[in-house]
């Protein structure tokens, strides 16, 4: 709530040169490479990519959810509201996680504790962080369930997660994320497990919540349809790295990276009749053996000889729009 009213131009969250590596017996897995992101207060940003592209790993690393051990190496700078998160003690980090940033994980059923009532889980953060009494928590839990549109909220507090339907569970999980009025809500594939009508309801809910609370929203998805529904800005990831980022409209109307173009062509559209949906040939590279040069060159229709050897970095193609394709000018010249 506070963020919406605050007159402050500095971004809420900035991530620079974030990399996440896991040491496994099969070699080093580079889940995220040189990831960057900036989110303004109240803004909504989508991170798009295929499974394994590092979307979730990047966000988990931002929240410092990976255990600190020799098998995980995380580098980069993450600043939340001007504070470098890496410098915080575990205790201070827990405060940020509870109060300011919330993460809604992918699968609502396995993300809720099967042995605890929904009412308890909804307000656990309030008990821990604010030391609220049981009665006060109960009131807030009813409010939260009302907020996410669960009918007869008061009677459902004593129920357990398995007693809710898939869509309702997703709402409960969203409500747990909202308990402390976070400034930033990160939703990881919030609609993937749901059928289409429920998907639309959940997206509508997230939009409404953003309007009501003024929180910033990061939505992690592989679905360009979801992106179009909810995001103001889009970051496209491929094989652990950002390949394109820009405003939602720019990305949809004038993509400047062959991978983004491929993703867009794979979306069914009512204004285009096609026998088959286009798909991107091949499959994403394994994280243990990333291709040299531009990582997308193995699947790129426009690939040139030197794409396999020269690494591609993000270049500004227009104000607020960046692409990691070295030949964006040639490939997308006059494409609009």
């Amino acid at each position, binding site marked *: 709530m506070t963020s919406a009213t605050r007159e402050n131009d500095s971004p809420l969250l900035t991530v620079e040169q974030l990399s996440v590596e896991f040491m496994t017996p099969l070699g080093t897995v580079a889940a995220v490479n040189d990831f960057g992101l900036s989110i303004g207060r109240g803004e909504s940003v989508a991170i798009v990519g295929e499974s394994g592209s590092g979307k979730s790993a990047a966000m988990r690393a931002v929240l410092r959810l990976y255990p600190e051990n020799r098998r995980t190496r995380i580098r980069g700078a993450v600043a939340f509201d001007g504070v470098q998160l890496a410098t915080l003690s575990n205790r201070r980090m*827990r405060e940020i996680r*509870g109060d300011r940033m919330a993460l809604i994980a992918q699968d609502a059923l396995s*993300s809720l*504790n099967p042995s*605890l009532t929904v009412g308890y889980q909804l307000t656990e953060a309030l008990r*821990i962080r604010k030391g609220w009494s049981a009665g006060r928590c109960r009131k807030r839990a009813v409010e939260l369930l009302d907020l996410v549109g669960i009918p007869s909220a008061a009677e459902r507090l004593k129920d*357990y997660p*398995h007693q809710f339907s898939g869509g309702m569970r997703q709402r409960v999980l969203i409500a747990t994320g909202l308990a402390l009025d976070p400034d930033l809500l990160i939703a990881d594939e919030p609609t993937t497990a749901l059928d289409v009508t429920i998907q639309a309801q959940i997206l509508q809910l997230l939009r409404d919540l953003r309007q009501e609370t003024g929180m910033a929203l990061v939505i992690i998805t592989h679905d360009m349809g979801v992106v179009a529904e909810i995001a103001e800005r889009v970051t496209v990831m491929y094989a652990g790295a950002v390949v394109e980022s820009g405003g939602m409209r720019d990305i949809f109307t004038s993509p400047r990276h062959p991978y983004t173009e491929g993703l867009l062509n794979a979306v069914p559209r009512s204004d285009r009749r096609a026998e088959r949906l286009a798909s991107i040939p091949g499959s994403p590279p394994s994280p243990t053996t990333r291709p040299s040069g531009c990582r997308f060159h193995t699947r790129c229709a426009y690939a040139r000889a030197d794409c396999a050897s020269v690494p591609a970095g993000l270049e500004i193609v227009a104000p607020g729009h960046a692409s990691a394709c070295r030949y964006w000018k040639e490939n997308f010249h006059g494409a609009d």
Partner: protein
Amino acid sequence: MRKLLVKHIAIGLLVVFGALTLTFVLVRMSGDPTGLILPQDASAAQRAQLRAQLGIDKPLLSQYFSYLGGAARGDLGKSYFDSSSVSAVVLRYLPNTAILAAASFALTVLVAVPLGTLAAMRRGGVLDRVVQAVAVVGNSVPSFWSGLLLLQVFAVTLGWLPTFGTAGVASLVLPSVNLMLYLFPNMARLTRASVLNVLPMPYVDTARTKGASEGRVMTVHVLRNALLPVLALGGVQFGSLLGGAVLTETVFAWPGVGTLAVHSISRSDFPVVQGIVVYVAVIFAVVTVLTEVLARAANPRLRTAV
């Protein structure tokens, strides 16, 4: 819930009935007890008289029904050697077994659950390897041997604790530790495996994203779920302890049900042996029902699944 309880009690009664029948048949098959009770040179008339006295001269079926009828009233007959009833004999030894069972089970839970949990949290670490090694050793060492070893070291050489008897807490230490060594491997390993299953669950991370401390994450979120299978194992272990730990009780001369069983078998006191078997069956049935009730209380998914 009530339906389930009724079902379990019915199953329990069936188990007890089965145990009664089986012991009856086995005892009758084991031959004529008069040969063991009377001296070798007893006359045929003396034997017949004893048979009539013990009631084993009647047809088998009528013996069976009067035995069942007696059991239903709590009367399991009289010991051959002691004029008191079987129930009285068993009840005399029962408190000792109950004390030892409670002490050793509490000790096992207090040692195995935290160690299993820590081993899982530091998987592959030093503690994990030590716990696993101790579990393997504990599983392979027979109780009578570990018991003798404990006696040798702590009672004989160091003289810290008494070698046998039931005098005070000190005499309870060695038998409890010995039983703990026997129960520890399964409980520690199950706890470890179960915690390892729960740790990667997304709801554990959900708790972390709420800002919960690691201690809270482990107790409220991980152990609450991870201990559900451990609870079931605990029920079985506690039930078997209440049935009398034959080897440990014998080694430490602990006057419990296990010692009574060994003693009664060696002198062919069939009614007492029968009584012990029935008692063990009843205990198991009761412990099973209680474990089921506890599991339901702890696991909400079981409650609505019926």
